[in-house]
């Protein structure tokens, strides 16, 4: 008898507070979420070697950038204003577009230990920008779209053609 009575009452769970509970959870995740994505300039470091043999590179392949401690930037031994690096390099990348991979431009960026980090990033930014604009230009010519809107398959040939080579020069030995 007693059992029957219980059954009659129905086995409902009170769902009225469900919304409140989920609201609390929602608030928790809202607060802990970090939406901001990390942005920056990606690079790949060279492999570590004890003794570095310097392979000779022909001079017209090389764009040597030096950022000295006074914040001056030298491109191939001459002082250049940072905003001009992009156009200068773009010309040189463009002139080597149709050459085989082992003849394309190499950009070498060298800094001194006392160089300001911001100056270095601004310089690197210009170099990256030159490559990016070159890729965009090519992809607009072929597909009529920006480079980053292309599919990976379409990006491949352009990437090979431009071939971004940025070398971070070995730091000089300290001391002696």
């Amino acid at each position: 008898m007693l059992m029957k009575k219980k059954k009659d009452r129905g086995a409902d769970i009170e769902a009225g507070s469900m919304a409140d509970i989920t609201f609390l959870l929602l608030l928790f995740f809202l607060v802990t979420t970090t939406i901001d994505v990390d942005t920056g300039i990606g690079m790949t470091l060279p492999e570590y070697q004890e003794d570095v043999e310097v392979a000779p590179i022909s001079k017209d392949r090389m764009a040597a950038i030096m950022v000295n401690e006074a914040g001056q930037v030298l491109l191939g031994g001459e002082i250049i204003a940072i905003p001009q690096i992009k156009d200068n390099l773009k010309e040189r990348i463009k002139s080597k577009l149709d050459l085989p991979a082992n003849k394309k431009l190499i950009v070498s960026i060298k800094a001194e230990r006392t160089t300001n980090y911001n100056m270095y990033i601004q310089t690197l930014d210009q170099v990256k920008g030159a490559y990016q604009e070159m890729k965009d230009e090519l992809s607009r010519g072929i597909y009529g779209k920006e480079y980053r809107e292309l599919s990976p398959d379409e990006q491949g040939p352009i990437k090979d053609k431009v071939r971004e080579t940025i070398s971070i020069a070995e730091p000089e030995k300290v001391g002696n």
Partner: protein
Amino acid sequence: MKFEKKRSQSSTGISTASLPDIIFMLLLFFMVATTMREQEVFVKFSLPEAEAIQKIENKRLVSYVWIGDNEKIQVNDAIVQIKDIQSIMYKKRQEVPNVIVSLRADKNSSMGILMDIQQELRKAYCRRINYSAMVKS
């Protein structure tokens, strides 16, 4: 006449029965999109600004190195010395083989400290790095 009659009969108030479902959907979105703020940053830094920057697509690959304005270096949740970086990063690389090391350096720091860190990273075979920078406004 007809209009008035209809109005008086209908009950006012929005049904809230589907409210939990809607909130659940929102909740699920945030649960999926969340990456926990797992580290507390002890060093003070302001990032440089740049134009030609990329987003890092996969946040789970990223491991951070902070370089503060007074040459303090933080990895994980502790201030470390330069010579410790190699072993820490080597361990990290074993956990995540294609780790990207994001260098969040103060813009007024000098290149010397960055060069030292880069040398350590190279020794630890963590060769993918990222100079963290903000979008130039």
